[in-house]
């Protein structure tokens, strides 16, 4: 299975079960996806046999809808609940990708998740890392899942 397919399966699975939201993957995006506007990004770092990072970039309204479903409460601002929920989403997605890579013999550990949010921000890593960006559509709006992975030679 390719990493792209793994990202699609992991995201779809987590959204269907934990967030109770139907999501549809689109074609992977090449080229710049920055800057982000009125959005929140959840990310988790990967370390060990593969160094990398998984992030989910979500516009604010979508993030609030996700949090409402996920935590079972109404939210109307990017508060601590939303930050924790989006961080947890990134953590679960990272965990899923980690399990997938572990099956193929890799030894990967996850860092703590974090979130970045604001009215306008760019989010970038040095170019020399394999990057996969998959867009998803839900009834509440679109979001992106980004995986950056550097394999040891």
């Amino acid at each position, binding site marked *: 299975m390719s990493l792209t397919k793994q990202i699609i399966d992991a995201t779809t699975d987590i959204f269907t079960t934990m967030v109770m939201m139907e999501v549809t993957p689109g074609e992977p995006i090449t080229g710049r996806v920055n800057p982000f506007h009125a959005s929140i990004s959840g990310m988790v770092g990967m370390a060990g046999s593969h160094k990398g990072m998984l992030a989910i970039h979500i516009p604010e309204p979508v993030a609030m809808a996700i949090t409402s479903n996920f935590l079972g409460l109404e939210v109307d601002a990017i508060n601590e609940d939303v930050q924790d929920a989006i961080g947890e989403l990134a953590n679960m997605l990272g965990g899923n990708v980690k399990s997938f890579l572990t099956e193929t013999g890799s030894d990967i550990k996850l860092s703590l998740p974090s979130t970045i949010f604001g009215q306008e921000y760019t989010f970038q890593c040095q170019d*020399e890392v394999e990057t996969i960006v998959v867009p998803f559509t839900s009834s509440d709006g679109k979001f992106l899942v980004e995986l950056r992975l550097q394999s*040891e*030679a």
Partner: protein
Amino acid sequence: MGKKVLIVDDSSTMRKIVTRSLRQAGLDFEAILEAGDGQEALQILGGETVDLILSDINMPNMDGLTFLKEKAANAAIKDIPVVMISTETGSDIIGEAKSLGAVGAIKKPFTPDQVNETIGSLI
């Protein structure tokens, strides 16, 4: 005749930092060549003569240790001195690099003086 150096590191930022450090160490090179990994380095060495190679250890496609092995097996380039520049402080990795032919190592982060100390006598 001027000396040439090849910097091998997957981070373009780190290559700029090394270039700046060489300048500040007072080491004068006619040309500074760059490669993003061991494979690219071997390709460049196929067409250019250099007097010194500075190489990172952890790189995609071909890492520093594999590069040393490949270089040692190539009569045309095996004698060019290689100094490793790396965050790897484990003496076993540096030891392995030396057993594969590296003549020295500079640990990141480093000062221009440290660069001069390690490299100055090689060129």
